[in-house]
């Protein structure tokens, strides 16, 4: 029984990680309708930047996050303006371009770090706390809390502020939003940058948990896609719950089936959701409208 709860907690905390990583992607998907293959790389870059802050300046990750997130915001602005805005109406080229960025970022970091594996883990994730009598890594609990806080904050932002409402309008119907005087291009720019900043937060908070590798972005991007599709494009609560579900599924599958097959699990989830319920659990945008699949 204790094993079960351990797996459960581990799954929930893992879910927190996935939620945090996916929340930025979800926003970008929902608003800009761009498939950003490089989103995982944003997380990865943020992780290295966090390590750099620690190694060079002794700034702990929980403080560095306030430097890294704005940094990633700027990175997002640049990428959107230079690469994605020109390709707004060409989905196939977006795939090429963002995949190109993925390869570019991945290997740039590889070249700079020369493949050395860095880790903050020793310093931070040794700290363990007790949760209902079960032990959990402090760093992971922080991630979970952060994911929950961000999800809540984002929901409030979207529903209470003008900027947030503009974003929601664009998610629902960009043509009408334009007609109402909303500057759609600027909304895209800011949303993409916001998505990158959220990836930055994820990277900073995940740095104490994972051993840094230039390839870690690739892992995150697939999980993030699965989460976003499961939870529904453009739905913040959907991404949050989707993340938890993917984390739980992976945790249970990892124990009862085989940890080596976790990618297969993501794919199976992904395909089943896309085929059976494309708008996700709580999708705001109809799947047909987003172009996810054919109209019936």
């Amino acid at each position, binding site marked *: 029984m204790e094993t079960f709860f351990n797996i459960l907690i581990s799954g929930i905390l893992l879910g927190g990680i996935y939620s945090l990583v996916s929340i930025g992607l979800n926003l970008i998907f929902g608003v800009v309708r761009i498939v950003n293959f490089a989103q995982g790389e944003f997380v990865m870059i943020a992780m290295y930047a966090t390590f750099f802050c620690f190694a060079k300046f002794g700034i702990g990750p929980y403080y560095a996050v306030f430097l890294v997130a704005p940094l990633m915001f700027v990175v997002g602005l640049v990428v959107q303006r230079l690469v994605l805005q*020109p390709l707004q109406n060409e989905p196939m080229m977006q795939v090429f371009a963002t995949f190109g960025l993925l390869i570019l970022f991945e290997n740039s970091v590889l070249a700079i770090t020369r493949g050395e594996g860095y880790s903050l883990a020793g310093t931070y994730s040794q700290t363990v706390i007790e949760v209902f009598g079960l032990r959990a890594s402090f760093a992971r609990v922080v991630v979970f809390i952060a994911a929950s806080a961000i999800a809540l904050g984002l929901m409030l932002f979207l529903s209470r502020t003008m900027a947030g409402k503009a974003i929601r309008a664009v998610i629902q119907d960009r043509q009408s939003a334009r007609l109402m005087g909303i500057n759609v291009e600027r909304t895209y720019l800011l949303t993409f940058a916001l998505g990158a900043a959220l990836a930055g937060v994820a990277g900073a908070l995940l740095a104490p948990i994972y051993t840094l590798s230039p390839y870690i972005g690739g892992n995150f991007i697939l999980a993030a896609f699965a989460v976003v599709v499961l939870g529904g494009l453009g739905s913040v609560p959907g991404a949050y719950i989707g993340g938890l579900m993917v984390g739980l599924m992976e945790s249970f599958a990892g124990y009862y089936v085989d940890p*080596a097959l976790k990618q297969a699990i993501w794919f199976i989830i992904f395909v089943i959701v896309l085929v059976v319920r494309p708008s996700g659990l709580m999708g705001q945008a109809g799947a047909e409208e987003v172009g996810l699949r054919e109209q019936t």
Partner: protein
Amino acid sequence: MRAPLETAGAPPSFGIQLARYAGLLALSGVPLMLLWSNPYWVNVLAYTYLFAALAAAWNIIGGFGGQFSLGHGVFFAIGSYSVARLYLDLGLTPWLGIFPAAVLATVVALLISWPTFRLRGPFFAIATMAINEACFALANYSDKLTGGPRGILIPFRAGLSNMIFIERWKYALLMFAFMIVVVLITVWLRRARLGHYLLAVRADEDAARAAGIDVLKVKLQGMALSAFLTGIGGGLFAMYVRVLDPPTLFSLPDIGVKFALISLIGGIGTIIGPVVGALLIVPLENFLRGTLGGDIPGGHLIILGAILVAASLFLKRGIVGAVLATMRRARRRA
């Protein structure tokens, strides 16, 4: 491409189109004729011709059909592993083994595509990428079938029936022949009803349906042909490198995305584009790997990534596409 010899109003002759492409393809064989005794270049050319063929195969569904697959590595790997297994376990000569291998790749392709073809554009790409990663995990996992992470090693036993050659130029020639076959198939396809239907599906699925096209069936047919040829390519690859492991076969930058990148640079949806793209990219990448690879790990991929981004922004139609557009403009001014 239109033959300049045609009389206005009469359909262009298939024979003439075929002859023109055969000529261009023969031209691409000139480097092999000149460099057949240079082991470095023969190796580069073997990869060049093989990847030209694989890019042309990808182009059938990715270029003509507009279905951006990042999962062709799966069909490639199935072809490789199958030919290897049939050869090692059953002693089946690869010359025959490539066909059941290709059929298996096709069957898997159809099974994967049937649910995922409902997805539009980028989401189809994501799904295929996820399939690639899932199969990578499976290949690592199933020791018996694929040799797991260590992979399969095909011992060197030269012989025509083994498709293992001492002289490396014979491999390059084999790949060259394969490329010719695949490209000529695309010449036929472009002219056939299926080719037109694929292009229509790519352009506008609703309009295609209104024209009586069963969109799903057409996509599946295109995918079947594409996967079949990719499977054969995988089989040839297996007998060339004779070391097959999951990281090699399922690597997206080296395999899955490479087919798409070559088609993009050369010209998506054109016939000779994949060949042009391969002639450019493969030697370039080898050169970069040689010069940068040691000092800057991943250096050649940085450049490849940059090329991918730049091409998607500035060279969407690829080299061949840009050339055709310029020719058309010149002809109109004339």
